[in-house]
């Protein structure tokens, strides 16, 4: 795990345990990963946060990404449930509308403008695992 810029949180044994639990838990507890996303097709999107649905069963976050031809596409990605994110130290207000972020993840099998989110990187270098690994 890497929560590089959250050293204080990292020092908490509880957090380490919880993050460890997340890391080894098959965290797609709600639906099958393979039924929706392609673990063989990792992807990175960069854009501006336009919408944050901090809701169950998964947090959904949307970003506007400008492609090379200037066209803007609004991508949505899903992550852990809010409760899981709270337990590992990602508070709701740490991500804001308008933030410029890049997000790694895996593409949707149905070709829609959405993906499974894994790690968010803010412009200042902070990183956080917002969703589980592919399985």
């Amino acid at each position, binding site marked *: 795990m890497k929560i590089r810029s959250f050293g204080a949180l990292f020092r908490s044994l509880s957090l380490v345990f919880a993050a460890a639990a997340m890391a*080894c*838990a098959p965290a797609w507890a709600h639906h099958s990963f393979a039924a*929706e996303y392609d673990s063989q097709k990792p992807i990175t999107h960069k854009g501006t946060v336009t919408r944050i649905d901090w*809701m*169950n*069963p998964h947090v959904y976050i949307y970003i506007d990404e400008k492609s090379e031809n200037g066209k803007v596409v609004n991508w949505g990605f899903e992550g852990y449930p809010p409760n899981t994110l709270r337990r590992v130290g990602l508070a709701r207000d740490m991500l804001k509308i308008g933030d410029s972020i890049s997000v790694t993840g895996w593409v949707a099998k149905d070709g829609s403008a959405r993906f499974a989110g894994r790690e968010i990187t803010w412009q200042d270098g902070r990183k956080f695992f917002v969703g589980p*690994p592919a399985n």
Partner: protein
Amino acid sequence: MSKHLFAMAAALVVFPAAAQTPAPAAPSNPIPRTADGKPDLSGIWQALGVSLTGETAAQPGGAYPAAAGGRGARGGPRREAPPYKPELAAKVRALVADPAHSPSAQCMLLGVPATTMNPMPLEIVQTPKKTVILYEVMRAFRIIPSDGRDHPKDLDPTYMGDSVAHWEGDTFVVDVTGFNDKTWLDGAGHFHSDALHVVERYTRTPQDTIHYEATAEDPGVLTKPWKVVDTQLRHPPRDDRVMEYECAQNNIDLPHIIKPAGTN
């Protein structure tokens, strides 16, 4: 004083309640006990072994911690599929290939043992005659009497069934029946009938875990009992309660869940 006796004396000092019960198999067993001498199962726990979907966890982010109970790098042994009668093979294949219809994807109650095996927290509240388990996933709960009563004779079928429990030594044994046929045994399409009968065994370990076993019998569907084993790990103290998980709040995945290639 022999080493053995010293260990026993030490155990009685630390766990005086143990003195009120018949000598346990391991006198130095450090598991905490309740006032009535039973192993204390109370707390927030979470299964980590096998996913609800039957898939093992990948780990591109790093190594697995010791907290996982020494499991392999893939997060745990893959569970054996339930042994279905041959004539049901086509139905099993169709459901296994239909993840959009999993009770979980539909935000329905998951049944037993799938709820316990789901990798979300549960809280066990143990009292001498009744134990309550509160599950975060699907906001499920179970009320489990352990006062010697049997199941009611006129049960209406339910998702979570009817539970009664007793102690076999230091193991809390829960008998569950009265299920409907709407849940899956796991997350992978393994259905059951309303004749399902599950026996769960909860054993507190010295490693601050609960060893969990569940055996499912369903004679009309399975050729023999099907057993799952897992470890429930304790959450850190800061996680002092299960939280609300209203799955239907924003369940927008369903239209995007597709069947694997080659199935129909």
